[in-house]
């Protein structure tokens, strides 16, 4: 085959695509340190926009910490609930199974904004309003459709013999799950966990409504505060710096876990 001749257009095409997909991120990074009127970096290149961010209200680390707590709790809750739920849906027959599964998927179909007011009232009744735990519980709920679906197909892809061997060895179903199956569905767990992390880290409107204490707000709300100035004017420097600060941990984590994340999809029964 005349490989190179055939390959050149391919490389040009795919290279161009890579540039298109990466360009906005590089542009935001560049722009956040370049001079721009109406920002904290008016003259010359520098970190003016990041300094504004760093010194915002309680200081950026407080917001990073809050975001880490919320994201961490959401990941833990999501993994725990969907691991058990996925196991139940994949391996057990019980009354109401299909209804519960459909209800879980239906979470995807309700406009987000509508649920927030009832959730606010509900968390208030439970004494969880204005608490990072309450916020994580709500974010977990929004993760459940994807997480449960993903874990269900992950469990379904595990050979039944694996579990049965453990059961024959005298394990209960719980021990079979914890000792044997968890390892088999690990890629699925990574995928679900990463998804939950990204969603919780980036979410903006839920904490905005559910958290009233400045010192408990997560990062995206703080960044949204920096963006808007008087009369609806937007500070592009702060916006771009904010996008970079929000995106960087996600991108790093994503690249680190990419292999397992992809394998999570592969291991599922999604195969055609």
């Amino acid at each position, binding site marked *: 085959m005349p490989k190179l001749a055939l390959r050149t257009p391919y490389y040009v095409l795919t290279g161009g695509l890579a540039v298109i997909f990466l360009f906005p991120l590089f542009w935001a990074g560049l*722009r956040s340190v370049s001079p721009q009127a109406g920002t904290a970096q008016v003259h010359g290149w520098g970190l003016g926009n990041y300094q504004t961010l760093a010194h915002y209200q309680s200081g950026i680390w407080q917001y990073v910490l809050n975001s880490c707590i919320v994201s961490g709790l959401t990941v833990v809750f999501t993994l725990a609930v969907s691991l058990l739920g996925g196991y139940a849906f994949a391996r057990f027959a019980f009354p109401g199974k299909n209804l*519960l599964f459909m209800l879980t998927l239906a979470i995807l179909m309700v406009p987000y*904004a509508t*649920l927030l007011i009832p959730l606010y009232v509900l968390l208030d009744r439970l004494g969880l309003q204005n608490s990072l735990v309450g916020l994580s519980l709500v974010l977990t709920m929004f993760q459940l459709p994807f997480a449960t679906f993903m874990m269900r197909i992950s469990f379904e892809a595990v050979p039944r013999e694996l579990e049965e061997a453990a059961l024959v060895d005298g394990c209960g179903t719980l021990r079979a799950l914890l000792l044997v199956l968890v390892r088999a569905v690990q890629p699925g767990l990574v995928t679900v966990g990463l998804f939950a992390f990204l969603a919780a*880290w980036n979410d903006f409107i839920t904490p905005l409504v559910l958290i009233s204490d400045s010192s408990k707000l997560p990062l995206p709300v703080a960044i949204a505060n920096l963006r808007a100035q008087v009369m609806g004017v937007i500070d592009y420097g702060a916006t771009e710096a904010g996008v970079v600060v929000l995106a960087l941990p996600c991108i790093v984590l994503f690249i680190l876990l990419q292999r397992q994340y992809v394998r999570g999809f592969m291991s*599922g029964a999604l195969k055609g």
Partner: protein
Amino acid sequence: MGRQRRHPGGLGRRRRLAGWVYATPTAAFVLLFFVVPLLLVTQMSVSDWGLFNGDQGLNAPHNFTAAVDQDLFWPAVRFTVEYTVVTTAILVGCALGLAMLVQESTRWTGFLRTAVLVPSALGLASASLLFYALYSPGSGPFGQIMQHLGISSGPVEFLGTPGHALWSTVALIVWRYAGFYMLLLLVALQGIPAEVYEAAEVDGAGRWQRFVHITVPLIRPSLALCTILCVTGSLLAFDQFYILTKGGPDNSTLTIVQLIYNAAFAGRDDLGLAAALSIIVLAALLVLNIGQFRWLRGKEN
């Protein structure tokens, strides 16, 4: 989806009980944080319920008639459907194209996959803000680039006309989501055994024929899943329009969820109306998705 096999051996009751125990956390979450709020939304939808003054008693079916009678209701429905069709077609098409381009496992395709996937690590709100800056005539790079290249003489109106605003938003969504859908389809593509293609090649099938008669049918379940997810996501589109266009210019990019948001928080302060609209959307999505599932199942059998 819903692949069920009967468990061998009749552990029966204990097994059912165990199933329930494992499903309990899911059930608790779904009931407490979804079903209960949803019931309250339902109650709001049949009540005169203001954002600031709360429940003023039942008024059914006033909220529903008021929702449909709004001047902007049908234009919003039309735009949302239009946006959904355009986005779904382009996004699923792009994702399939990308998946086929990066099918082999080489260093280069590995890099490509990462490049396409990285935007999906951003939140939709962050991505929308980023594109808002990109599209801004004052701050964005495109205007200057295009002026340099002589393509355009004045500032480029990315969000200025209804058509531009729609396509600019679709571009953002493709950028943000193409990687995710590409991955779903890539997994499906790699599940097709090589022998199938080889056999087809022996039979003299061309590239296009192989694509139409082998690839597409074999990855149909994944294509359908992508379509369902994309249709549902697009019908509920909010963040991207809230940040990029605010429904403008001249209400041409107002989606149904923006209408809900406006009813509740931007001026009308009417939770009852917002809840009624939400119920209408939920019902439409349920019908649509059940239809899609049925269609999928029907074809499978």
